[in-house]
């Protein structure tokens, strides 16, 4: 009894994995597992709000497809940024910059030498 009473006071909140949550929403968990998940969710406002919202979906099977779609879009977005950054990196490759500087220096140097010789 005392151990059970302790549950009311403690905020146990190990992270809940998505698969278990989806099974819960589709009514696939045993009563015991349902209770276990509910106890984990109730103390965290984020989890509690999410559970309430997810229960509003008419077809619970759709949820996974929606999540997958959102994740694919997200991946595309973050990868695009990365490719752009890589392109930028390539443009400013340090070897390229050094080569350009050397060529420029050589050009200036040869101009000065030719100029001096012509004057002399």
């Amino acid at each position, binding site marked *: 009894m005392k151990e059970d*009473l302790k549950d*009311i006071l403690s905020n146990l909140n190990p992270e809940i994995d998505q698969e278990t949550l989806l099974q819960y929403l589709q009514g696939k968990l045993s*009563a015991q597992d349902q209770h276990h998940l509910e*106890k984990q969710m109730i103390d965290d406002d984020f*989890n509690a709000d999410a559970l309430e919202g997810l229960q509003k979906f008419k077809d619970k099977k759709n949820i996974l497809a929606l999540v997958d779609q*959102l994740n694919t879009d997200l991946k595309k*977005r973050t990868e695009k940024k990365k490719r752009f950054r890589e392109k930028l990196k390539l443009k400013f490759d340090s070897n390229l910059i050094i080569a350009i500087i050397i060529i420029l220096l050589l050009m200036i140097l040869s101009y000065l030498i030719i100029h001096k010789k012509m004057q002399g």
Partner: protein
Amino acid sequence: MKANRYDHITDDELLNLYTADKNQQWIGILLERYTLLLLGVCMKYLKDETEARDCVQQIFLKVLMEVGKYRIDYFKSWLYMVAKNHCLMRLRDKGTKAPKELSDYHGATTEVDKQELITHEKTYDLLEEALNELNEEQRQSVILFYLKKNSYQEISEKTGFSLMQVKSYIQNGKRNLKLLLQKKINPGSEGK
């Protein structure tokens, strides 16, 4: 869902990786962990599946833009705050009144208070006493949930309350129990 190859990296570590190289892919991996929860939160406030999906996409964008601007200690609560504010802003833009929060007083008890409650030796006797002072619905729901380990569904079947009522009786009952307990342990600190 398949096990992800980044599962062993904590939220904090992902944030640190992002801070180190500014590669948004880290934030992408981090956000993916919360897509389902975000979808739930948006659905709770907006009550429409298509709007909830759009809202999650906007929250992703907002996070990608703003995550570098702040020092974030605990990503999950920061994300929840961003998501909730975004939903409320959308509701306000639509002219809908934001729903009154049931959990307005959530977090009123501080971590120190909680520790004090848990370690106090008389706590458990007082807790039983306090349990009897709750109103009948809350008392019944709290006992069935925490002591008899019933699920919401089972409690709903036994008591005739709706699932939403069960959840709110448990949440409010628990909150009231904490307040009652604090009053019993420190009778002079009610106005604190």
